[in-house]
């Protein structure tokens, strides 16, 4: 049993209702039986679970999340900078 994993849709076979998905260079078929007709398109990012496509990943939402993380990293880096400046200013060996 494996966790559900993000994959990219590369082909759709409407007759058998199966899509081909790419998971980092590994291609396999997955059933579209759990998705509404025509809701999945080539190029979509989807979650794959035991041979079925479970849902479509919201790309915009993923990008937004990643943007927020960039901001949090900036905050941390800024704090580190301030800390370093403070330590430097308080260093007894510092020659002004």
């Amino acid at each position, binding site marked *: *049993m*494996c*966790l*559900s994993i*993000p*994959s*990219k849709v590369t082909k759709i076979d409407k007759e058998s209702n199966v899509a081909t998905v*790419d*998971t*980092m260079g590994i291609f396999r078929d997955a*059933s579209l*039986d*759990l*998705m*509404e007709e025509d809701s999945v398109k080539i190029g979509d*990012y989807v*979650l794959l*679970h*035991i*041979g*079925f496509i*479970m*849902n479509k*990943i*919201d*790309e915009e*939402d*993923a*990008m937004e*999340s*990643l943007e927020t*993380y960039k901001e*949090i*990293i900036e*905050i*941390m880096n800024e*704090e580190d900078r301030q800390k370093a400046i403070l330590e430097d200013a308080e260093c007894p060996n510092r020659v002004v």
Partner: protein
Amino acid sequence: MKLELKNLYEDFRDADTIKALANEIQKEALKLPQSINIMEVCGGHTHSIMKYGLKQLLPTNINFIHGPGCPVCVMPKERIDHAYVLSLQKNVILVTLGDMIKVPGSNGSLQDARAKGADVRFVYSPMECIKIANENQDKTVIFFAIGFETTTPMTSALINQVIKKEIKNILFHINHITVPEAMRILLDDETNTIDAFIGPSHVSVITGSKIYEEFPLNYKKPVVVSGFEPVDVMKSVLMIVKQFVQKRCELEVEYSRSVNYDGNIQAQRLNDTFFETRDTFRWRGLGDIKKSALILKAKYSQYDAEKVYDTVLPKTTIDDHKLCICGDILKGKANPKECKVFGTACTPSNPMGSCMVSSEGACAAYFKFGNIL
């Protein structure tokens, strides 16, 4: 920036992001009035937490309690014995997902049954049953279906295909169970020490986050539905800490790129077509829980292996070995390391209980990833 597939893996495991979130959690946690216990319901989250060492990044006033979200772990021995007995029936091919291979029943595991000559096949996808059934028209294929709400729709889709294609030699032994009822039982126990929940990722993709509303509402316990990646789990912990600091108690979704309120309606519809809720079901460790498991509707009973093979299936309930504390571990009352047989008499190659051998079992996670702590 255009989203690449790689981003969905790498960026949600990014080291700097994890460090930054750990930093934020440390800052917020200083404002906590007391320490908090967060239960991650799903075994997959337990594995993420252990594999990525996330406990090492948290301050001492935040603790993880491991939950019962491992469908194989919560199956009582008598149901495992059903699988064993069915596999040894004449002209039966027992098909199930790989996780069931080594799970110990009272007579042995399915691997042991296979060594005795049973035809047991482990598949990656339930749909493989159709190929097996077509290639073995003279045999009966029994699909032993396990899993929470993530996996139920796949069984439903298979049933749908079996009926559409008029396949006559596939039966189903249904062991699908549901998450919220288990969470409720844990909270109904007054001695529980759970302050908040990290909600399962992929159960929620199917059901929608709506199924957790009752917990902030009726039990005053915040729930944050989280993704599996370390960044997701850390962000979820931060969201929970902020709720406590800001004195909020809400249902939030961290895993918004895949989880919404309503879930996968098509999957839910398929489930409703074939399944109804059992009155009660015995969970290993948690005891009898009302309306927590599924059964095929009466009109599909001809596909129900439990009915067709009723006369051969064992009926008595079977308890675990005395020294096995899987029950307490599943309720979040004990840690795998507290088990007397952890790592000695009970190991992944010689398991006494399924928690040690399931890919989502807490004991398996601790055995594989937890020894440095």
